[in-house]
């Protein structure tokens, strides 16, 4: 049986009096891909950010590789080196070149030798077909290129889990496929463990081993990917899928 | 002992005199602001017009005030007006003159910036309604820019108030000059009074200035969200 990477138990999160996440529980095995689906404001982004310590939570527990996460800044700081995250707005550092963006965390946070990381970074850049942009600045790149670099930047940390938060939502339609192909390849070829928030239903149906369908901060459905798209169990999920033209 | 000097503040009419000095400073700041803002509005408007000569002259005017420290401005007015132009007026009015011209320069830049930020189509739709240049400015542009200008204007006011501390250098009986006199008069009986007098003036300036700068900060924050 595959190793358990992540387990979430009875997670509750509040913004002031307003409860953003209700009693969230799920787990994730090594190599598995989970997609979080649901209408806007359903809590998908809040949940994925909570899994990286970017949002705090009130009660419940998160286990990373069987170990309970003590939600202190120090713990998260260490864990984030093993959990890569890519955002909707790419967020490359505008003052650094593509290469320096990739090298920054592995060399400064993980203290790995620069030459070794650089070699690896070049391989990754070749893989996303951007090796020729190593010395460019982010502003010289298209959105799709920036997002591919952001994925490389996260991968260079050797993460054991990758979080993708609506990574194609700000992209022009023609850029979307290139980015999604990279994510797909990460799963098919590298068997990367991933949690993905997306509105691309076709992509989700191809890649998801498991779907969490959220609404109003609650998990309404937690089913294998194929089953969710072919036989959604709740009325809300059926409506959602038809509203997404799926 | 330091604390005995505090009595100097409340002896005789000392406290009232200090307040009188503060009033002089605030009064000069207020008059200068009124004149300077009016003049600055006109200069700012002129700087958005097409005439290159007017724009150049007003730019040089602004740069002059950007370069010359305010204390030097006071001396320029204080020495040059009477000796060179035979203009004799009380130092208070000389200060008002210098401050007003300075405020006008700074404010003209604020007004120009705000006017230039009004979208072009606002101007065009005003003209399309048959408004002339002045009506356009008075009814369309000015009202839209006031809100934009307000935080910077309040900040300018706080600077003018702080700058009134320089009035003593041209012998105006402002709060610091009064303080200095009190310190000197009581130096024998209260050698530690100097700490308390200047300490009080320090606090007085803060009390006048801080609410204004807080207000400006709040307005700026509101405009951003």
């Amino acid at each position, binding site marked *: 049986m595959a190793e358990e990477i992540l387990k979430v138990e009875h997670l509750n999160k509040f913004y002031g009096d307003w409860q953003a996440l209700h009693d969230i529980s799920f787990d994730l095995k090594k190599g598995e891909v989970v997609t979080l689906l649901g209408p806007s404001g359903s809590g998908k982004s809040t949940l994925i950010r909570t899994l990286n310590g970017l949002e705090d939570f009130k009660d419940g527990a998160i286990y990373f590789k069987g170990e309970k996460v003590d939600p202190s800044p120090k713990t998260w700081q260490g864990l984030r080196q093993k959990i890569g995250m890519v955002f909707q707005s790419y967020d490359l550092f505008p003052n650094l070149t593509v290469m320096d963006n990739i090298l920054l965390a592995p060399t400064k946070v993980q203290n790995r030798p620069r030459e070794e990381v650089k070699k690896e970074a070049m391989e990754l850049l070749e893989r996303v077909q951007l090796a020729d942009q190593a010395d460019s600045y982010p*502003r010289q790149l298209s959105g799709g290129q920036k997002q591919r670099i952001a994925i490389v930047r996260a991968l260079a940390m050797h993460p054991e889990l990758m979080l993708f938060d609506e990574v194609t939502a700000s992209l022009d339609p023609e850029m979307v496929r290139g980015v999604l192909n990279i994510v797909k390849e990460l799963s098919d070829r590298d068997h990367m463990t991933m949690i993905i928030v997306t509105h691309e239903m076709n992509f989700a149906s191809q890649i998801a081993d498991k779907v969490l369908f959220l609404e109003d901060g609650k998990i309404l459905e937690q089913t294998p990917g194929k089953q969710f798209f072919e036989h959604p169990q709740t009325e809300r999920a059926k409506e959602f899928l038809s509203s997404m033209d799926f | 002992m330091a604390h005995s000097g505090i009595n100097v503040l409340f002896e005789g009419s000392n406290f009232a005199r200090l307040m009188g000095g503060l009033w002089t400073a605030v009064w000069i700041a207020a008059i200068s602001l009124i004149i300077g803002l009016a003049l600055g509005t006109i200069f700012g408007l002129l700087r958005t017009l097409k005439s290159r000569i007017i724009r150049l002259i007003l730019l040089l005017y602004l740069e002059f005030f950007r370069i010359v420290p305010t204390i030097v401005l006071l001396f320029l007015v204080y020495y*040059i007006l009477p000796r060179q132009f035979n203009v004799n007026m009380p130092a208070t009015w000389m200060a008002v003159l210098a401050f007003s011209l300075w405020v006008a320069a700074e404010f003209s830049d604020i007004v120009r910036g705000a006017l230039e930020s009004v979208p072009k189509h606002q101007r065009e739709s005003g003209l399309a309604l048959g408004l002339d240049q002045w009506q356009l400015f008075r009814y369309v542009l000015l009202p839209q820019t006031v809100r934009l200008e307000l935080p910077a204007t309040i900040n300018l006011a706080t600077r003018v108030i702080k700058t009134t501390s320089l009035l003593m250098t041209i012998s105006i009986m402002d709060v*610091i000059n009064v303080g200095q006199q009190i310190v000197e008069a009581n130096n024998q009986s209260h050698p530690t009074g100097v*700490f308390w007098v*200047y300490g009080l003036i320090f606090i007085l*300036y803060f009390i006048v200035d801080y609410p204004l700068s807080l207000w400006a900060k709040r307005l700026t924050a509101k405009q951003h969200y």
Partner: protein
Amino acid sequence: MSWTVIQQSLPNFVKGFQLTLWLSLIGIVGSVIVGIITSLIRYFKVPILGKILGAYVEIGRNTPLLIQLFFLYYGFPVLGIKLSAETSGIIGLIFLGGAYMAEGFTGGFNGISKSQIDAGKALGMSPWQMARYVVLPQGLTLSVPAFSANVIFLIKETSIFSVIAIPELTNTALDLIGMYYRSNEYLLVLVIAYAIILIPLIIILDWLERRVRYGSFGD
């Protein structure tokens, strides 16, 4: 207007000029250091110290330099702390300038988008690494306009040192006027002296602002 009068005063003005430059330089460097430390401590909301420095920034920005100097120079000896005029001037200027610079840098730091901060955190950076690699390079770039306004402001503020008899430019002019009554000449030299310092500086700072705006920060 007499050329001879001007000529004879030049050696004095050169000394005052040098002192103004020197005091400005120390004041600006000191203010930048105080400003960066203060704004970082406030940005990362360090308990207690952050609040104290918040109060410092408000006090520094909302009181005139002149009264700060009087308090330091005349008031502090009462506490047994005797400072020379120059020392009082430099401390006062850094007290004032540090508060202004801190406010400017804070504005720059707050201008960094929240998602950039998230990206830094997501890469496992410590608060110190966040400051070093994300907050400072981007925040300082964003605060260049405030910085250049403060530099010019601080240089002009050194003129107030004249009230505690530090022989910088303005004091030099006032002394000469007091001795020889040639106010036209001396005030003219004084204004030109400030122009010589400030005009090139304004040009350089404008260039820096434009470079930062259109340069490496274009997206």
